[in-house]
């Protein structure tokens, strides 16, 4: 499974998204589910799935699906 697919799965599970949501273009606070509470659940779920630990700066900079993909690539995840 590609990094994008795995991450999409984590978003859908952690934020309990409907199929209609365009996950790959999602940004923080675009939808109700991704508010501050959802953000922390999401960060924890991504850390679990990819076995990584984000720094404080990364947690607060993770403002979109795409940014999350780039951060994970930085960890060498999904290669």
């Amino acid at each position: 499974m590609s990094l994008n697919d795995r991450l999409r799965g984590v978003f859908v599970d952690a934020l309990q998204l409907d199929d209609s949501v365009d996950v790959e273009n999602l940004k923080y606070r675009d939808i109700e589910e991704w508010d501050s509470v959802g953000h922390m659940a999401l960060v924890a779920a991504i850390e679990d799935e990819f076995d990584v630990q984000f720094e404080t700066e990364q947690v607060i900079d993770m403002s979109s699906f795409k940014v999350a993909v780039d951060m994970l690539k930085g960890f060498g995840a999904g290669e």
Partner: protein
Amino acid sequence: MTLLHAQARLRDAATGDLLGGAELAGRVSEVAKELADLPSGVLFLRVGLDLTSVLRYLGAFEAGRAVALLDPAQDREVLDGLVSRFRPAAVLGIDDEPAPGYSQDWVREDADGVEQHPDLAVMLPTSGSTGNPKFVRLSRSAILANADAIAEVLGIDSDEVAPTSLPLHYSYGMSVLNSHLRKGATVLLEGSGVVARPFWDAVTKYEVTSLAGVPYHYEMLRRLRFDPAKYPSLRTLTQAGGKLRTELVSEFNDKMRAVGGQMFVMYGQTEAAPRMATVPSDRLTEKLGSAGPALPGGTFSIRDEDGNEITEPGVAGEVVYRGPNVMMGYAESEAELALGDETGGVLVTGDLGYLDSDGFLYITGRLKRIGKVFGNRVNLDDLEQIVKGYGAAAAVPAGDKVVVFLDRADKDTCKQAAKTLSETLHMHVTGFDVRPAEGFPQLPSGKIDYRSLEAQV
């Protein structure tokens, strides 16, 4: 008497604009004039963390018009229900298709409405109640008395800069706004929240001095490894909205003290506008786990099951608060807008607790089956009703969340039930931990043994 001190300022983080002095007062009076011309009845304000919303709130307050503060993300269906029950003069902050009987700009077409009681200033939704939300009626004098008492115990003066870390339709968020404006301080309007970069950039740029949070904020700050040394202006933390784990109270207190700052733990209810108690920061270590003594002007008493006052320290019973900030009463429909004070300044909190010999309150539990979801009160029996379509349910509190055991449910059903709870109550889905169960433990009476369920979470 006004909420707005001559020095009070609003900083809009979105634009960087600072509004204060005569200019701010002028903008507020302009709004007040517009609102004064609306038909009689309460104003519904869908209040966001933005300048327009805050000017409307202040305008209504200055115009002496009752204003009900609503979640801007509230479902249309819930709003329509409230509109038909309360027949508001207007709904502000909405651009949806208007409800029947309302003009294109959401002003009620029928000029006749119930005249509000002259003391009534703000109505806040009581959190958690299902299907049939009601409002707490707060008088002008209760709002002002609470703002003053809060400012006194926290030492708020005109040098303070407080960001809007909490929604304004939430009583704690409203009180941060009120207590700062009342003392000529600056309120920074910032809507992205403590987990986002723009919030922390604004904290640095506008030299924020304090931060208000409910327990889940502190859980987040811990996860973010919050370090006050990185924010030299930020020297006060306040916490309310439910009991924060004592380890976290100590941890944040230590962090703040290490940089010469302070941490305040507080207790309140929307019904008290909302603050009732605050632990003085220099006694936090000594009184760990306490909600603090009553605010200036208020008193606590503890009563037993028969309603008799317990005078002995350390003996638990129901917490009763008396003070100038207690609500006038509740409102479930338009007719109650006209009612005067029904409480006489006495609030029977529904919380269980005791006072120590220094008059510090310790909360030990709730009389009714109540849980908290991210600081918002929810009735656990209501939760069970909401999900009964999925099977028999048993809900128990679990810190900042609620665990709902669902009899003989599979994983998908549990997920669906959590989603239903989230949508019905308009709270984040992660606040509802729905788990499958094989029957429930029972008491000899045949009732569900909630204590043993609580022990499982």
